[in-house]
């Protein structure tokens, strides 16, 4: 960890559904510009942790901070809504199943939130859409509806939609898991480009190759706890923990089958 103050700070995160504990007292700090991968078997709580960062899945205990703002403040309903809508503008999120708005064109998908929340004019919105779609290489699809895009293109539009709010941090929840293998690379390339621009990113993924080449740090989670964390070279080449070794061995065996 760097010495500077953490950018995203998760303190003692706990989450349970009834008697089922999904997150057991997890603390995680991410520095500005850092790229962190969260890996682990399904049911390990990695998606739940990611979704707690923008309070989509509220924690039952613990705190989440983005810079100097506590994300999961306990407030009366109206004040909480106002607060969280503000905070979420700074936290971009990309989902496994894209969740593009099917009734809106690519342009409108990208500009809906900036127009509503930042009051952009038509011209400003158009410029923003072009800028973001250019970044993900889809400027020629600006008038398309989502149903006419491939999975990889959909996910790139979803990334552009998130970036259009100029977030401080980007969360990726298995962004390539629903894609055909040949479409994974185009999404990975966009994410790599973001990494080069020093976007702070927290990435839940099953793609060890991507995590190894792009991320600064890898977190291995299992059964609601962080089992091991460290630089990718350490985690992937020489993990200390038996559970990590076991998981990676199984994962590699599956990947090579």
């Amino acid at each position: 960890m760097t010495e500077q103050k953490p950018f995203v700070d998760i303190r003692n995160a706990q989450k349970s559904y009834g008697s089922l504990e999904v997150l057991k007292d997890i603390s995680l700090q991410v520095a500005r510009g850092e790229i962190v991968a969260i890996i682990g078997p399904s049911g390990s709580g990695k998606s739940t942790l990611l979704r707690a960062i923008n309070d989509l899945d509220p924690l039952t205990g613990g705190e989440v901070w983005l810079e100097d703002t506590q994300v999961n403040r306990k407030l009366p309903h109206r004040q909480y809504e106002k607060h969280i809508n503000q905070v979420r503008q700074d936290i971009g999120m990309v989902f496994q199943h894209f969740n593009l708005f099917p009734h809106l064109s690519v342009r409108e998908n990208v500009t809906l939130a900036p127009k509503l929340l930042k009051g952009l004019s038509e011209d400003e919105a158009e410029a923003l859409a072009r800028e973001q779609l250019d970044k993900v290489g889809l400027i020629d699809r600006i008038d398309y509806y989502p149903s006419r895009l491939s999975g990889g293109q959909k996910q790139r539009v979803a990334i552009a939609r998130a970036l259009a709010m100029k977030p401080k941090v980007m969360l990726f929840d298995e962004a390539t898991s629903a894609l055909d293998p040949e479409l994974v690379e185009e999404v990975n390339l966009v994410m790599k480009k973001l990494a080069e621009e020093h976007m702070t990113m927290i990435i839940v993924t099953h793609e060890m190759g991507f995590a190894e080449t792009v991320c600064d740090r890898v977190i291995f989670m299992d059964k609601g706890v962080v089992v091991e964390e460290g630089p990718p070279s350490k985690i992937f080449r020489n993990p200390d923990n038996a559970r990590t070794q076991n998981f990676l061995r199984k994962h590699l065996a599956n990947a090579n089958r």
Partner: protein
Amino acid sequence: MDFDLILRVYPFFIEAAWVTVQLAVLTTLLGLACGTLGAMARLSRLRIFRMIGAVYVSVFRGTPALIQLFILYFGGPQIGLQLDAFTAGVIGLGVNIGAYMTETMRGAIIAIDKGQAEAARTVGLSRYQTMRYVILPQAARLMIRPLGVNINALIKGTALVAAISVVELTYTAQRFIGSTYKPFEMFMISGALYMVIIYATGRGITWLDRKVRIV
């Protein structure tokens, strides 16, 4: 079949059909209003509204529309609510069909994938903006056909108001049977005109559904 008779009486039936159309249109509008409010109540964050919505739906779907009409029209004056037959018919049928429309609309809204609301909320849209710009535009498209089914039922349901003497298609048939003793012809005319109204409405619904389909 007495065609001479049919030719003599049919202008009265055309007039009656117009009353039925007016009933159907006004009832649909009131039903849509009640359905919108009902669906909002049923999907509310607040328990009290959800309960009001649930009671509304179960009361009006759980009792015969005819009884509801009778309570309103015959029972109303007893508690100081004096309505003419047409108004009572529109209110009675509209509030009744609104209960069905509540469920239709609620169903369409909850059929929209949860990921849509999540995506909207994560870019910072409020609950209202999410509903207004993301969920409702999609749900509205899903609603058209099932609402068409409700409207179809409602048009046929307007026949009930004959029982409170609104001079519409069914009542008119009954009235002419009293003087002509030709129930076959009279009900055939009424039935044919109902079918024309329903067929036209069905075409309208299909047209609307095609027009707004997501490309």
